C-alpha cells in the first residue's frame, strides 16, 4: 500500500482584490517529504496550505496529489489530514469520539474503529485517555489528539498550520522532535506551515520560503541557511549583515580587498553575507584561508550561552559577531574601543544576488 503521495503545485494564483496572496506558485513536494512553508505573516503560506486542503479556491493553477488533479475537489474528498493552529477539537465529543470521527464517516466497523483509535492514541502517547472530555486536556494533549485525529484514517498527505504556536517554548521544542519522529515512522507527505525559522530548520527535509505570495527558495535547511537565494531569505533566516560588493577583472572586491569566495559568483549586483556566528577574531592576517575585515569594537554584550560583539568596519558598516561563552573565547574578548581583525573563512564567504523582486520589508 502506498503510504504517501507527491504533491505537484503548478502556477497557483490567488488574488484578493488587487493583492496577490499567491503569485504563480510552482512547487514540487516529494512523496514522504517533510516540507515546511516558511514566511512572515501575510506572506501567503497559510493561503497555500488552505489551497492544498481545499478551503481556499485559487483563481487559477493546478494541484495534483500523485496523478490526481484535485484543484476542483471539495475538501472532504481530498483525503488529507489537517491540524489547525487552535486544534479545533470538537468539544461535544470525547477524545475517542474526536479521533474516531473520520473513521465513522468512512463507515468503518465499530470494533475496528475502537482498535484504530486505541492505536492512534498510543502513536501519540496518549494511551488510556480515550474517554476524557476535551476540556480536561492540557494544551500539549490537545495537540496530540488533533494529530491523532488527522492521521487515524491513514491519509497520504498531512497538512499542519502552525500547530505548535499555542504551546510554551519547552513543550514546543519537545513536540518538534516528536513530530519529526512521528513523520519518520509514518512516512506520510507532510506540509507544515510556520513563521518560526528555527522550527522550520529543525524539522524539515526542505524549507520553502514564501514572501508576498511568491516562492523564493525551496531547499534543504542547510542550503537555505548557508546559501540563501536572496537578501530576504538571508535576513529572514538567521541574522546577517549584507554588504554590497564591487567587481573588477572577474574578482569580487570589498573595501579594496579581493575576497576569496566559496561557490559560484552570481551574475549582476550582489552582496556579501556576514552571519555573526561565522565571524571570528583573528590574532593577525597570516592565515590565508580567511578574508580579514579590520574594525573597531563598539560594544560587547553578554547573553548567557553566547556573547555578541558589535563592531564597525573601516567602511563604516556595522557588523556583529557571536561567540559561545567558553573560557578561551571569553578570555580573548576585546574591550570597547579596541581595534580587531574579524575573519571569515573563505568556505563561508557567500555572495547573495541582489534580487530586485523581494526587497526586504
Amino acid at each position, binding site marked *: 500500500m502506498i503510504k504517501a503521495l507527491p504533491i505537484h503545485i503548478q502556477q497557483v494564483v490567488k488574488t484578493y482584490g488587487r493583492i496577490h496572496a499567491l503569485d504563480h506558485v510552482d512547487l514540487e513536494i516529494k512523496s514522504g517529504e517533510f516540507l515546511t512553508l516558511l514566511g512572515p505573516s501575510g506572506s501567503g503560506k497559510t493561503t497555500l496550505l488552505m489551497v492544498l*486542503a*481545499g*478551503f481556499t479556491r485559487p483563481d487559477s493553477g493546478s494541484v495534483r496529489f500523485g496523478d490526481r488533479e484535485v484543484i476542483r475537489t*471539495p*475538501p*472532504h474528498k*481530498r*483525503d*488529507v*489530514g*489537517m491540524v*489547525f493552529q*487552535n486544534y*479545533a*477539537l*470538537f*468539544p*461535544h465529543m470525547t477524545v475517542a469520539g474526536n479521533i474516531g*470521527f*473520520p473513521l465513522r*464517516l*468512512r463507515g468503518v466497523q465499530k470494533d475496528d474503529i475502537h482498535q484504530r483509535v486505541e492505536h492512534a492514541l498510543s502513536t501519540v502517547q496518549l494511551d488510556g485517555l480515550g474517554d476524557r*472530555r476535551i*476540556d480536561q486536556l492540557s494544551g500539549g494533549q490537545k495537540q496530540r489528539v488533533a494529530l491523532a*485525529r*488527522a492521521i487515524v*484514517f491513514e491519509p497520504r498527505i498531512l*497538512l499542519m498550520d502552525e500547530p505548535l504556536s499555542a504551546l510554551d517554548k519547552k513543550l514546543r521544542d519537545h513536540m518538534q522532535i516528536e513530530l519529526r519522529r512521528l513523520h519518520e515512522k509514518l512516512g506520510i507527505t507532510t506540509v507544515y506551515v510556520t513563521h518560526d525559522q528555527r522550527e522550520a530548520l529543525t524539522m524539515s527535509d526542505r524549507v520553502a520560503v514564501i514572501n508576498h505570495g511568491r516562492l523564493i527558495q525551496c531547499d534543504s535547511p542547510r542550503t537555505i541557511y548557508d546559501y540563501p537565494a536572496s537578501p530576504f531569505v538571508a535576513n529572514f533566516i538567521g541574522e546577517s549583515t549584507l554588504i554590497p560588493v564591487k567587481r573588477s577583472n572577474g574578482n569580487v572586491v570589498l573595501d579594496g580587498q579581493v575576497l576569496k569566495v566559496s561557490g559560484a559568483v552570481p551574475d549582476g549586483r550582489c552582496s556579501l553575507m556576514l552571519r555573526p556566528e561565522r565571524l571570528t577574531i583573528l590574532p593577525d592576517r597570516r592565515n590565508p584561508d580567511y578574508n580579514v575585515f579590520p574594525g573597531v569594537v563598539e560594544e560587547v554584550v553578554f547573553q548567557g550561552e553566547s556573547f555578541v560583539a558589535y563592531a564597525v568596519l573601516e567602511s563604516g558598516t556595522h557588523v556583529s559577531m557571536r561567540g559561545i561563552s567558553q573560557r578561551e573565547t571569553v578570555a580573548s574578548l576585546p574591550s570597547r574601543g579596541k581595534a580587531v581583525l574579524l575573519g571569515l573563512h573563505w568556505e563561508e564567504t557567500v555572495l547573495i544576488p541582489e534580487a530586485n523582486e523581494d526587497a526586504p520589508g
Partner: protein
Amino acid sequence: MNWLSRPVSDIQITHGSRLWLYIVSGLIMMFLVVPTLIVIPMSFSDSQYLEFPPRVWSVRWYDNYFGSPEWMTATWVSVRAALLTVVVTTPVATLAAYGLSVSNLKASRWIFILLITPMMVPVILIAIGIFFAYAKLNLNNSMFGLVLAHSVLALPMCLIVISAGLKSYDMNQELVARSLGASRVKAFLVITLPQIRFSVISGALLAFVVSFDEVIVALFITGGEISTITRSMFLALRDQIDPTIASISTVLIMVTTLALVLTQVFGQSDSP
C-alpha cells in the same frame, strides 16, 4: 467591624456609603416583579373587583376561562400559530444566519440589515400593510396568513440570536470536519449544529414568544374562528375589564416562568 463599614471593593467604598443604592435597587426590583405577580393571588378573588388580599377565595375566573369555548379556541389558535411560527422561523433563520456568516460577500451585511427590517419598521405599518395585501390575496382570517406574518416578525430576533451563537463558534471545527471527510451538510449537522444548539433553541423560544405575544398584526388580520388569545384579551381590556383575564394572565405567567427556568437549565448544560 460591622458589615456597613466593610469595604465593597478594592477602592474605599463601604457598604454603608452604598446603602442608598441597595434600597433603591430593592425598590426597583419590587417595581419590576410585584405588579405582575400580584395578579396571581388576585385572580383567586371572588369579587368582580379583584381584591388583594382576596376576602373570599374562589376559582370562578378559572372556570370562566376554561369553560368558555371562545377563550379555549383563542388559546389553541395562539398555541398553534406560535408552534407553527417556530417551525417556519427557526430553520429559515438558521439557514440565513449560517449562509451570511460563512460567505464573505460584501452583500452579506446588507442582506442582514434587510432581514432585520421587520424589527425596525413600526409594527402598525406592517400590520396594515399585511392586512391590505392579504385582503387582495384572501389570506385574512387564515392560520396560514397568520403564521406567515408572525414568522416574519419573529425572524429578526431569531436571526440575531443564532448569528451571535455562530459568531462565538469556532468555524475551524467545521473545516476540520470537512478535511476529515464530512461533506459540508454533514459537517454542519454533526459538528456545528450541536454546538450552537443553545442559540437555536433560544431563537426558537423567542420566535414562540414573539408570535404568542403579538397583538397588533393579529388585531388586523385575524378574527372570528381565527382569533388569537392576545387579540381577544386586548379587545376585552379595551371594552370592559373582565376578571377572567386575571386567570388567563396567571396561566400565561406560569408558562413564562417555566420557559424561563427551562432556558436557564438549557443554558447551564450548554456551556462546558
